[in-house]
């Protein structure tokens, strides 16, 4: 019976298809100021990355996103990296970010309120939003090369945005 339920859940999960609007959220940045998602959308593609200081793949991934941000920030591309470090490790976030010189927005989700809204149970977890705030791509985990897919998607979003502008 348990096996049957397992099989049924897997089949339904594999065959359903959906795209949803990114839930709005309000979080503190490293300077203690509140930042809201809706102030970031509507300007271009937005990448939201859930990460933590103790997570090695997250750190690898953020290094790649740092490069991506340098390449495309002039075109309207933006990144929000949401740290899911809880009260045990949140003290390490700001020093870590400063030593790594990340120049995109870092937000603190200490009790995983926003992570829950995005169904993030594990990190790293990446979401790519189009200009309208729709989630057009999401990815759990990081393997070298995953950033190439993200780069391709960002380029596609930027091209379609510039096509609309020229029309």
């Amino acid at each position, binding site marked *: 019976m*348990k*096996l049957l*339920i*397992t*099989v049924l*859940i*897997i*089949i*339904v*999960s*594999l*065959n*359903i*298809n*959906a*795209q*949803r*609007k990114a*839930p709005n959220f*309000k979080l503190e940045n490293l*300077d*203690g*100021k*509140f*930042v*809201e998602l809706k102030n970031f959308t509507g300007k271009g593609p937005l990448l939201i990355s859930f990460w933590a200081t*103790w997570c*090695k793949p997250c750190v690898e991934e953020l290094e790649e996103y740092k490069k991506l941000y340098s390449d495309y920030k002039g075109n309207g591309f933006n990144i929000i990296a949401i740290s899911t470090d*809880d*009260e*045990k*490790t*949140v*003290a*390490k976030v*700001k*020093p*870590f970010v*400063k*030593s*790594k010189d990340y120049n995109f927005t870092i937000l603190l989700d*200490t*009790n*995983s309120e926003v992570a*829950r*809204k*995005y*169904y993030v*149970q*594990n990190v790293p977890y990446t979401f790519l939003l189009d200009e309208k705030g729709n989630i057009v791509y*999401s*990815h*759990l*985990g990081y*393997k*070298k*090369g*995953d950033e*190439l*897919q993200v780069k391709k998607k960002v380029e596609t979003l930027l091209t379609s945005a510039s096509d609309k502008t020229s029309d």
Partner: protein
Amino acid sequence: MHIKFFFFLLLNCFTSLLYAQDNFFPQLPDGLGLSNQLEYSYDYELKREIFENWFNLDYRYNIFSAGIRFDIFQPNDPNPAISRGKVIYADIAFKYIEAEIGDVEEGMKVTAGNFYSLFGRGLILKSYENRNIRIDNNLLGVKIEGYYAGLKLIALTGMAENFYAERKDILHAVDLEYKIVNDLKISGSFASNDPEEDVARTMIGSIRIQPSIWNFDFYGEYGLKRNNDVKKEKFKNAANNIGEAYYSAANFYYGALSLVGEYKYYDNFIFGSYDGTIIYNNPPAIRKEYTYALLNRHPSPLNQNNEKGFQVEANYSFASETFLTVSYGETKTLGSDSYYQKVLGVNQPVRLQLKESFIQLNHTWNENIKTIAAFGYSEERDANTKNITPILENYFYIDEINTIKLIIEHQHTTDKTTTEKYYTDVATLEYLRSPLLSISVVSEMQTKEPDPGKTIRRFWNFIQFGYTLGEHTNLILLIGTRQAGNICIGGVCRYEPEFSGIEIKMFTRF
């Protein structure tokens, strides 16, 4: 039966990929979100199946949102601390409705139903879910959050589920935070439980301060606990307080260097329900979070009634290719003058609970090879062991999307009670192919030498496949044997028993 199941599963994965553009289910309506997490395992040795499933459904429309989480366990985790004595469970374990008005500077959010909340760093209140360690102390009630002119207020009242799956104890709590200037925040928290039984309520409160000056940040929190019954019975009304705690953290960063120092003092500061089966607060454990299996093998769980200690950590980036982390921490029990010992009526000396030091160096040799070398030393009192753990991790980037990873961990353990020594070795070989596939082979060997010349070796081996399907589903399949061990997150641990069999984990979200 299992062969048929895998064949069926493989066939479905294959067809789903082939016809990914023509899925027969409709797209979800706007505003609707759902996720499903499934864990299934079959232990060949114990002939035991465990099925666990968490299904979330949320709907958002303008300022309103609502959702449920439907949990199914059959049977639940064999650990009674997690199963709460239930063999079969299927119910809506979490439901809420929420309304949010205003903007980033001035606004309000009201939640009715189940919710989580954190005040400061958890000294007074931490209501949270962590599925990895099967903790969920959500509150059922009402929570109001308000933001106005630099003020942030959280006020809540709710009940958490106790060991017997009953919500009896009522918790009332409030947290007020005020940003005086951009670089200075002061806050205060207060919480009180209202037991159903005719006993005194426990009250707990704290004040905290968070200044930032130049490249220096500070966080300090001081808390007190009161209970009139304990005050009368244990202190003969001679003291107003029955518990005390403080926690502070200081950060400094300059260029590529960053330093973090933390200090804790938790004296009789567990804040829980009257029956003792719910804990509402969870302050920083000040223990290093490790990503390697063997470094978590001898954990030291947090005891917020009886510990003090510190941890310092330094990070330095020599260049973009080399990164160094060094940390050292100590945790000790409290002395005989502590509230904890007075309440228990004992007179124990201060003892070392945990001492841990860790150093890790990451170096990227070239675009194809990266090495991480780490070394850990720890002494902990619960199992009374001393552990020396060297680790070597190598990444071989074959091309832009293919990686081979090799991790070698060795741990030399001395049991300080029996003076027995034993060694544990773990080798992990992983192949990663972006963006879809990962295959890991993990082999563990434990070597014991109970008598001179006599060697006993035990082995555990498993293979794990990870596959991403259609950007929204992650599937993990594990086959083999796995050594028992602890999963510890921030001083809260869950013991995973030894396992021989198959395990499937699937996570889907939309």
